[in-house]
């Protein structure tokens, strides 16, 4: 155990680290400038429990109805060995629909490491046929009983249900489970994500679509690392993700392509940053703790030593957001970034009002903001007075 890991374990307390998944990794890209969040997530702190201990429980929950519906839709789409799914994906990719495709269910098995190895071996073996190193006969035998056949260049497409991929996040192996990976369609690997939010007349809820894109980017990244680790070209994994959603108000699935190049960059950057936690940790006081077993006052005092960068968007993605919001009370950032910018970038509300009233000596670098605020205050008073 390195000294960094030791530090993180101390911060976390006597509990095992919380495992990341694609959703939590996607959430990491939300507010990359927040040190508090980077340290807590890097250490795998149980943030929901921590938030509850310090009196700011976060209301993150998912409705049972939404979960049921999501599972039902995925099961429906994958029924019949994925025949319908194969057609949807192939048509969307603009390739002829293969007559046959192998279907490998990788969703079973309790041991994650074992599953990851099995997935890795099978996926690497399913390299697109055009690649010379795709011809690995022992792998072909495992996907669909063609043990004695020679691998041919026109090899059929292969679908992998729930493969388990690995990705290093803050020095720890995280297991990720995409809904489906399609191999040898359009000459590349494609991540297929099945979501139950509807696409109505070609339009989806923008927030849900954005979340799905970041999440899929995490899978693409993990799959690329897998290929790169086996000495293959990571670009064999397409940066276009196939998103399968219900069409309109029906249960009928429809496939769309999502270009996740931008999300890949964002996720990559944040993961690199998490990998350099050592640098961040040097700025964290030695006695910093987020151990939920500690008493609330200690935790609050400890947390306040590591700076957060609260923005209203945090409320939707970070379990600690209500605590940070309370801490940011009286700051212009808590009103939202646009408000803060409109106020000339002044940080504190009291300072804004003092500058607006003109009863404070003005630093030279604040002169412009101060003039703006004074003019605004005068105009506001003028207009409100005129109407009264």
């Amino acid at each position, binding site marked *: 155990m390195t000294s960094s890991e030791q530090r993180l374990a101390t911060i976390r307390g006597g509990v095992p680290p919380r495992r990341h998944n694609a959703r939590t990794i996607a959430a990491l890209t939300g507010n990359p400038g927040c040190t508090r969040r980077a340290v807590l997530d890097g250490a795998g702190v149980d943030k929901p429990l921590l938030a509850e201990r310090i009196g700011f429980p976060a*209301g993150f*929950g998912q*409705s*049972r*109805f*939404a*979960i*049921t*519906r999501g599972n039902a839709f995925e099961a429906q789409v994958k029924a019949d060995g994925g025949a319908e799914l194969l057609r949807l994906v192939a048509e*969307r990719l603009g390739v002829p629909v293969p007559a046959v495709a192998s279907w490998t269910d990788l969703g079973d098995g309790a041991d994650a490491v074992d599953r990851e190895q099995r997935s890795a071996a099978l996926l690497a073996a399913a390299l697109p046929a055009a690649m010379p190193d795709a011809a690995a006969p022992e792998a072909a035998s495992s996907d669909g009983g063609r043990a004695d056949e020679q691998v041919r260049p026109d090899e059929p497409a292969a679908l992998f249900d729930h493969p388990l991929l690995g990705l290093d996040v803050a020095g720890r192996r995280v297991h990720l489970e995409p809904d489906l990976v399609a191999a040898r369609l359009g000459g590349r690997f494609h991540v297929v994500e099945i979501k139950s*939010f*509807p*696409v*109505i*007349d*070609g339009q*989806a*809820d*923008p927030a849900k*679509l*954005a979340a799905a*894109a970041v999440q899929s980017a995490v899978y693409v990244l993990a799959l690329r690392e897998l290929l790169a680790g086996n000495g293959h070209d990571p670009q064999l994994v397409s940066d*276009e993700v196939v998103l399968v959603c219900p069409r*309109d*108000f*029906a*249960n*009928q699935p429809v496939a*769309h*392509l*999502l*270009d996740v190049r*931008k*999300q890949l960059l964002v996720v990559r950057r944040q993961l690199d940053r998490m990998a350099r936690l050592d640098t961040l940790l040097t700025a964290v006081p030695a006695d910093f703790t987020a151990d939920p077993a500690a008493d609330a006052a200690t935790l609050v005092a400890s947390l306040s030593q590591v700076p957060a960068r609260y923005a*209203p968007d945090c*409320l939707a993605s970070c379990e600690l957001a209500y605590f940070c919001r309370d801490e940011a009370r009286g700051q*212009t950032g*808590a*009103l*939202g970034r*646009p*408000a803060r*910018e*409109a*106020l000339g970038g002044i940080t504190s*509300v*009291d300072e804004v*009002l003092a500058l*607006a009233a003109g009863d404070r000596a003005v630093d030279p670098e604040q002169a412009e903001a101060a003039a*703006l*605020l004074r*003019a*605004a205050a005068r*105009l*506001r008073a*003028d*207009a*409100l007075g*005129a*109407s009264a």
Partner: protein
Amino acid sequence: MSTLRALAAAQAVAAGVAQPVATVRHLHLSTRPLVLVPLAMAGEANAPLAAMVGTAPGDGRLLIVPQPRNRDQRFAFAAELAATVLPYVAAHRGANEAVSVDRGRDVRYRYLDAPQVLVPNPAGVTFLRLLGRSTRFRRVDGDYPVPMEVPLLGRWLTFFAERAEQPGSSALLAMTQALTLHWATGQSAVEDLHLPALLGWIAPPAGLTGAEAAARAEDPAVCPPAGPATDPGFDNRLLAPAIEAYTAAGDDEAARVEAYARLERLLRDQLTPTWELMWRGLGLLRALPPGARVAGRWDGDRDAFTAHAEHVDDGGAPQPRRDGAVAAAARLHRLERAAATYAVQRAYDDPLVMAEYRLTGEAFVGEVVLADPARVDDSGRRPVLRPRIQLVTTEPVLVPVGASLSSPARPGQKARVVFVTPVADGKTEVVLELSGGMGRGLTATPGSVPEVGQRLCYTTLSEAYVPSGAFPAVEETPWTHGGPPGASPLAAVPPVVDPSSAGRAAEVSGAVEPEPDPDEEWA
């Protein structure tokens, strides 16, 4: 966000209560609006779960769907909703008035009043838009018939949702938007979308600050969300068992009645707080005096209502799923014009809105120090009356010489900037040459030229009529826009989405899709 609004938000933080950002009401309020609070089932595609609807605080009608995944029950809900909405709409088709068009050469009629629907938040508007989409193409015959009034409801809901996109329209209002148009709270725009928290800031209960009231409103146990999304905790703990009990009751009449009553009680408890907040919000808005140009914009809503009612009467087709190229361009143009007009009208109606333009130098208020009301310009072919006035202002004047300004106090008169001269003490002298609104002769009618000592606001914002653009006929759609419909080789291009692209809803497909099948399932 404008600096003035941000400053008001900062003042709200310090004062502990929301601060006004408007001195008049910028929207029309009907004497009898239809308040509609919808709830949707989580995870489903806009499946209605319940709604409270009515035109008076004590008259909220509760509609519920005991098993929201059941298609027939959904359409039964739509039929029940139609039984309230359609008579409400029809009640506004009473007396009408004649409006002259084409400079008096023709006349058309419009209803004296129009329906107005109020929902809690923008998500409520989206809910109605999608409910309209899912019902307006339904067939009342064939394999999957729906009740008669369902497609008609869909067309009217679509009408309201489309009006809600038009800046300045009051046909369908989201209460949170209506309130934030007039008050700035000490919280962020995201938090303002929560109606209970927003009202907590605007009118906190006695003994609480706005921040405390808003914090209390965030607890779903104290204050249920204003919909259409329900609280996941409520779903898991209360709603799911109640729906299961209803389904399990099956043919057991007694058990079913009891389970239905339990569901009704649960959903009523979720909806009633929001229902009451809607009327409180309405009361706060009614207390504000309406802006001078609000009635004019409501005329536009009455026109649109009349036109749509006639379209339906004449057997016109339901609104299409997607606009064609020409219709889309025309719609965009119409919305842009409406947005520009609305911005100008709000500033003209309200000195607090005009202050935003004064801060950015697009308007200034000055005192008239010199006036030459009899000045005649005889340099042209005919002498014309062109009085000049000189104003002194302490505000920054960023308008260029030659610019055409107008004053909210004298909207019919144009003022051309002749000189802008900075003088001592940060003051600026502005000389304006006036034209229009002074009578026909070479002598200005009394009072039509500003007098020395008057304080006036001049701005680049203009209420002048801008003629609408000309668009080709559908069959003459240019090739740049896909050519005439029917022959569309470009539609085969595989669509690729950029999920980070801004916009009301992210576009996921460029492909032209066929009209929905009449038997399209809704489940």
